[in-house]
């Protein structure tokens, strides 16, 4: 429960909450990047440097931009949005709150949380690379396959088939 943790946590929660609450979709995405950055900072604080930086690269650099693009493409200038929230937003909010309550209860009531903080392991990129290449090589390969498939799939899905629509 250090001060830095509290600050980062607040930052993150604020960012994400804004991302989920703001009216303007682009603002939402921008706020979301703040939240992502906060999470990345938390990773760094936890000593997972590689993951943190990867988080920034992937989410801030790629996903956010992607979302922005999507918003731009699907944004109709003319229409004034009636409400950004869907018709059953109250029920949804209640459900979400219930989920949080239950999870919090679980966390609070669990004895399995470890009190002690083990010594900071030095995770050099070298080690991560070794682990990826030896112990986790199969998942890594599958991941590469998945990403390729996703890339092609995304292109195929999003491709504008003019000649068919005509």
């Amino acid at each position, binding site marked *: 429960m250090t001060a830095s943790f509290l600050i980062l946590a607040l930052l993150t929660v604020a960012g994400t909450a804004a991302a989920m609450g703001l009216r303007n979709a682009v603002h939402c995405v921008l706020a979301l990047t703040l939240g992502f950055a906060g999470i990345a900072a938390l990773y760094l604080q936890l000593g997972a440097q590689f993951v943190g930086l990867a988080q920034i690269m992937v989410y801030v650099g790629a996903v956010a931009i992607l979302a922005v693009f999507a918003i731009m493409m699907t944004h109709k200038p003319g229409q004034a949005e009636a409400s950004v929230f*869907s018709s059953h937003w109250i029920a*949804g909010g209640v*459900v979400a709150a219930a*989920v949080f309550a*239950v999870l919090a209860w*679980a966390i609070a*009531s669990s004895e399995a949380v470890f009190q002690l903080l083990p010594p900071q392991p030095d995770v050099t990129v070298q080690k991560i690379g070794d682990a990826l290449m030896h112990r986790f090589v199969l998942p890594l390969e599958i991941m590469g396959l998945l990403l390729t498939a996703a890339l092609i799939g995304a292109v195929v899905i999003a491709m504008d088939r003019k000649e068919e629509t005509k």
Partner: protein
Amino acid sequence: MNWIVKNLWLIPALPMFAAGIGALLKQRSRVPAACLAIGSMVLSFLLSLVAFAHVLGNRANGIESFNFGWFQFGNEWLKLGWMLDPLTAVMLLMVSFVGLLIFVYSVGYMHDDENFTRFFCFLALFAGAMLGVVIANSLLLLFMCWEIVGLTSYLLIGFWYAKPEAAAAAKKAFIVTRIGDLGFLLGMVWLYAQSHTLLFYDAGAGALESASLTHLAARTTVLGLSLASAIGILIFCGAAGKSGQVPLHVWLPDAMEGPTPVSALIHAATMVAAGVFLIARIYPLMAATVSLTPTVALQVVTWVGAITAVFAALIAVGQYDIKRILAYSTVSQLGYMMMGLGVGGVAVGMFHLITHAFFKALLFLGAGSVIHGCSGEQDIRRMGGLRKYMPITFLVYAVGMLALCGFPLFFSGFWSKDAILHAARDWNISQAPFYMGAFGALLTAFYMTRQVYYVFAGNSRLAASSHDDPQLAAHFEDPAHHVAAHPHESPAIMTVPLMILAAFAMLLGLIGTPAWPWFQSFLDRQQPILSFAAFSAPGIIPVMLSSSTIVILGLILGWYFYGRKPIATAESPDPLGKLQPQIFSILGHAFYVDAFYGATLIRLNTIWSRVCDWFDRFVWNGAVQTISYLFLGVAWIDSSFDTYVVNPSFDGGCASVSRGGRILSLFQGGRIQSYLRMIGLALVALVIFLLWGAKR
């Protein structure tokens, strides 16, 4: 064991392999196909030479065979194998050599056909199967190759399947030979049942070796036949089917619809010879007896052969199609061979087989050359005067014709036929075969003369011929063939094989003269002794004289009828026909055998099928109808039960279910978020449940 014996399988395997490759080739790749087939044939021929030399080198040691287990059933091994003995060696040499010549010839003959590649594929397969028949040491292996031969002959006869006649002829050949093969199969099975092996020679355990032969000869079965004879007769049915003995000869003339090289290959060299070879192969079985008199099997063979010889020769007199004449003459010659086998043993029959193979191949290829020259014309009445246009063909054809007639001293046919007649005269059952053979020889000389005069003498009547046979003409794409202003000599690639064959047709007789019976002694594994004293042996000279006189008489008759004044026009009736119209027409229609079969067997078949049809219609159908009505009644009761008892309750159930479904479908709002809400609630419920589970 010698190398060649161990690798004898290569000889049939090579052409078969070539056929396999050729089957994969594209239609356009003609040259590779031909090169493949001919190359493989050359190799087989060389290997056959090696085998022959091997046998020639050591005629002392017995039959060399190589056997191997094919598969096991129960605790019995079904064994296959190949063997090498003088008979095999000679047949190998003959088949591969004649086959090779025919291959070369057909390059020229078929060069216009668009299915050139397919043709060579079939030819190679045919030759390979035939060679397989020759080397087989197991009746089963022989039977397999035998059937492949049947199949390929079907394919080759029906090669121009566009022609309905060709297709019909192919079917006919296939079915008729099948009828014979049925007997073959039965005999084979019976043989296996009796002597537990199908190998011919297996170091004393073979079916053709003394142990089993004595057993087979001793046991007698239905109508007093010995087992050996019974089985032999059954197998002879197969042989008769393949080599067109009466009454199964009907397919052979029709087979002329196929391309001429095929006719040559089938009739001269290989397929029909297969039957004779089969009998020669199982000769020990046929001849196995305890008494001294010839066995019933051999008598059957003799009589059938003799009848066939005369019968077919008579028909040949009345034919107009050049190839049909040769076909019938083939049938009669085969009859001679069978007769020779029956009366005189392997050597006599085989000797005629070999010589006949050469000169009949020569004749067929010559006929092919004639047809080719006359651009597809097959009717001898429309030919004539070809001597001027194709001299080489004329010469070689004349040689072949003289050899077939058995012109004295210089032609192989003379010696081989003479041997047969001589053996027939010494036959101690009856003299009839001898006289029949003599009469056949007379007829042979007669109809060959007739044919030659028709085809080559006089002046050309081809100009009058408008192609009334468009299908056949259609198979010569080259327009040069359609405008057949006057016939032309065939290219060298066709004439050279003819000349080679002609040389053999003349010289081959010299290895079988009574004075120096090299061939016979080779088959019997003795040293031939050259002694002109052999001529002075009783019965030799008279027979030679009589046969020569008969032949010359036949030639003169032929000249008298056809040579004296050349036939004027294509439409002018046959001189002999003028003499005896009705008899001649009977001959021309081949004794109405086909018509007879049509009237009896096929009619019977149709009648029987009608009966079956009627039976079906009324008896069975009635029964079925009644039963079905019964069931209909039951079904009606059942359905009423359904409609009034089952359905209401079931409908009620369905209605309630669908009502429930409608209620449930409210949750299926088609909105992701509602589903997501459900998932969230489920998660909550799950966690609560788990926590309470953890509590206690």
